[in-house]
């Protein structure tokens, strides 16, 4: 999932936690940057000089690919380069989305408290959907087992003083799809038909 960020990137992104998604007006990306981001979104080629190969595909020199990527990283458009782990496959068999109903004025303080734990991988405030859905603070807990997740949760509740807050634990039963986000989607014929 996007919205993920390594600790190392946190410092370069100090203001994001305050910015609602819709408030940002982005300058349009240069055409060459768009082509570059589209060319690498599915992954880097496993060849000795991957950026030369990417450049060859889109008509840019290796050095220009590297310069543009450095710039895109500095601008925070690329959060990080690296591997994305399927947590099940490395032994984190249990993941739960824990949702909390937190008074609006306490959300920020509690969100920051939860985000400190290393077993928490995402922590967001999201809108309530009353009456069906009262929860406004979400966090993802990963553990090696459900017992592990529950133990983490108990620790968090005590540490952050959450005993009185309504919450629910939504374990995942099945993962249907985990391929990461694709931001550059060539409109396929089938997609257009679906939209029609």
């Amino acid at each position, binding site marked *: 999932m996007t919205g993920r960020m390594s600790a190392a990137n946190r410092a370069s992104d100090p203001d994001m936690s305050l910015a609602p998604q*819709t408030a940002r007006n982005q300058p349009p990306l240069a055409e060459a940057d768009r082509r570059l981001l589209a060319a690498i979104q599915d992954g880097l080629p496993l060849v000795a000089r991957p950026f030369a190969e990417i450049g060859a595909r889109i008509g840019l020199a290796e050095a220009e690919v590297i310069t543009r990527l450095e710039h895109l990283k500095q601008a925070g458009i690329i959060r990080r380069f690296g591997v994305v782990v*399927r947590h099940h496959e490395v032994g984190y068999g249990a993941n739960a989305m824990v949702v909390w109903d937190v008074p609006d004025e306490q959300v920020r303080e509690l969100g920051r408290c939860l985000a400190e734990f290393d077993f928490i991988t995402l922590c967001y405030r999201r809108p309530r959907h009353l009456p069906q859905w009262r929860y406004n603070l979400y966090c993802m807990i990963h553990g090696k087992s459900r017992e592990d997740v529950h133990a983490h949760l108990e620790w968090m509740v005590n540490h952050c003083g959450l005993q009185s807050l309504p919450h629910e634990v939504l374990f995942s039963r099945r993962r249907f799809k985990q391929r990461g986000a694709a931001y550059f989607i060539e409109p396929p014929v089938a997609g257009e038909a679906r939209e029609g």
Partner: protein
Amino acid sequence: MDALDRAIINNLQGGFPVCDEPYREVAGRLGTSAEELMRRLDVLLENGTLSRFGPMYHAERLGGGLTLAAMQIPTDDFERVAEIVNAFPEVAHNYAREHALNMWFVLATETPERIDQVIAAIERDTGYTVHNMPKREEFFVGLRFEA
């Protein structure tokens, strides 16, 4: 998975260098060769330990849209709906969860406006309401799985 696989995973979650010969640079850090590192990455991707190897984009800074959405689907209709939802290229991942709202998926789109269009298309194609739960505020965490 052996010690080198684990070292590769733990080392490359944090970052991959952007330079002429990045595999060689990482391999040097890990005490192996560029060829072996590429071969290992290929296997880890092939066997599903890694879902991808490449850039993670910042949807909003890219000018794109990103949201979490949830649906309540009767058990006997779940498979049919999951198939329809997963067929949308904008659905980045989709989990069945234990709750009345039992299907949770992430949408990533090229533009923010497109989120609403995709949600409307999913509602139309499945016949069920989609609850849009966009991020309002993010509290930062490190994302690392020790392998």
